[in-house]
């Protein structure tokens, strides 16, 4: 790997650049399309950005595409509420579940652990019918809780925190007991702050997971008020014989990409830290 052969360097760079271009080009096209009026996109597709950037994005955010009946701004808000709800919910529930499994002795502890673990094998798609039935019975269709709650149980995060908690020395727990703290204090004062790098890493993964949810929001929402952005984009395309508002759709697509990108940019440092080191 440390050999320095010029042609090898050239080859690796060429490969990487090619990869970047393959990934980046569709995004560039999307961006270009979002800066032109509709007629221009449908007649002769330009390869350079046009002058309708502000106009298109403003239209998307405040008016939306004609058929859907709700603005992209509203849908972004919905997506954000769902994504943050899922992220914080998952982290909180997983922390508590892992805490229970690692630190408390109760009947069938291992049984519950394996039960949680097995759900790893059951993604939303597999259990979507029963989940829908339960959500309907609980009157959670067309609501934020309906968007969030069925998705906040996370075996992956629980497992991750369990593994982390098991590396925390027992003496810390005992030191807190001697210092006069109970289980709640130990959890909030010691365990949660110690897990913060893992939490940050999970935050990035889970936010993107939540933001990109498609199937569940599609099924659980009928009221446009609760559409998330990803469903909204799909709905904008369902125009039948009519003409889709491509410039608005492309602008919405660009907007849909921004929050995950921002999360990655701002949390990058903590993310890498959480993946590679633990504070001890």
């Amino acid at each position, binding site marked *: 790997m440390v050999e320095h052969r010029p042609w090898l360097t050239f080859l690796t760079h060429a490969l990487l650049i090619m990869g970047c271009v393959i990934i980046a080009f569709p995004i560039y096209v999307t961006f270009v399309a979002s800066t032109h009026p509709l007629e221009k996109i449908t007649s002769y597709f330009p390869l350079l950005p046009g002058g309708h950037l502000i106009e298109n994005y403003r239209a998307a955010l405040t008016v939306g595409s004609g058929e859907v009946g709700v603005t992209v701004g509203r849908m972004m808000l919905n997506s954000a509420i769902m994504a943050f709800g899922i992220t914080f919910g998952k982290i909180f529930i997983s922390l508590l579940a892992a805490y229970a499994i690692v630190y408390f002795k109760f009947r069938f502890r291992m049984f519950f652990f394996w039960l949680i673990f097995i759900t790893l094998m059951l993604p939303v798609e597999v259990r979507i019918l029963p989940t829908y039935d339960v959500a309907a019975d609980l009157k959670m269709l067309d609501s934020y809780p309906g968007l969030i709650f069925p998705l906040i149980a996370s075996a992956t995060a629980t497992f991750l925190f369990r593994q982390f908690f098991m590396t925390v020395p027992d003496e810390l727990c*005992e030191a807190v007991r001697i210092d006069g703290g109970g289980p709640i*204090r130990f959890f909030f*004062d010691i365990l949660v702050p110690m897990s913060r790098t893992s939490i940050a890493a999970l935050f990035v993964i889970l936010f993107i997971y939540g933001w990109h949810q498609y199937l569940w929001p599609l099924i659980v929402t009928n009221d446009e008020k609760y559409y998330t952005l990803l469903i909204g984009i799909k709905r904008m395309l369902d125009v039948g014989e009519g003409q889709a508002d491509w410039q608005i759709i492309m602008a919405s697509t660009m907007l849909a990409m921004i929050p995950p990108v921002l999360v990655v940019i701002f949390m990058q440092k903590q993310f890498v830290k959480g993946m590679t080191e633990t504070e001890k």
Partner: protein
Amino acid sequence: MADVNLKDVYKTFGNNEVIHGISCDMKDGEFIVILGPSGCGKSTVLRMIAGLEVITKGEVFIDGEVVNRLEPAERDIAMVFQNYALYPHMTVYKNMAYGLRIRRMPKAEIDKRVQTAAEILELTEFLDRKPRQLSGGQRQRVAMGRCIVREPKVFLFDEPLSNLDAKLRVQMRLEIRKLHEDLKITSIYVTHDQVEAMTLGDRLIVMDNGYAAQVGSPLEVYERPATIFVAGFIGSPAMNFMDVQLSSDGKSVELNGGTHLPLQNEGMPSHAGQTVTLGIRPEHFELSEEGAGRLTLSVDYAEVLGADTLVHGHFVEDETLLTIRLPAIHHFEKKTRLPLSVLSKNLHVFDKESGNRIDT
């Protein structure tokens, strides 16, 4: 500050009894060391006093009050753990203040106590650091600071120096002793290191397999070990043991080769004629042609340590191996014959069956 009393304390894990009834009265301000090899249950005893382990049977009193059912926090104790158990995400200051904050002490009082403790332990300049930015010795001090600020009735130490290097260990040992003399708080200290035990303790509890083999001052334990186990555990190199016959009048012992060693005072006529175990410490042999008991050692090899010399060899009369320690530097060839003598008061006689000391 308080007395700590153990009354016939037992501990069972599942069906496995690990502590078989320990009793000890520790006086206010005393420094008690629980000493024993690993796995003898010494940490378990400490953890029962701390309240981290349930007491299966018996009672633990702190300051005259039965604490069996009290939570660790309610027992008013403070503990230093082997790995220090500092809270890694808190600064030194917060580590020390945490216990006080939980107890809702006013901020000004917390600050005063932390500053005072930091001064005593020379930690003032490190108060804003995180534990991982400190050296082992400094972490150790923070762990002690966390205890000092609490001003508890009892300090508990669980092998606090075993993670430090040898030089630092000596230094911290002295500091712990000094701290104890300043604060006069009842302290219970668990260790497997006999040097720590001898230097720190006012009294030792020597533990053997879940039993308290002997409770006494360091010198008592050294000079009059109660069992073969204690005799062999205390002292380095370990005591030499050999099976010997008591003479018919009980006034001397006869070694395998026929050598007679006279016993102190009247000897032990009650055990006359019995086979017993004789113990002699390596440092109690003297190189001399004269003296009451004369032995001849054939040298196998000698280790020159500088301050003294360890000679490993066997008696000429039989093959009993033994180690002796002579002051200053000696160079001996293999098979050199050394004339040795031992004073009567340095002979320890133990019952062969029970291992208990037979007193003269």
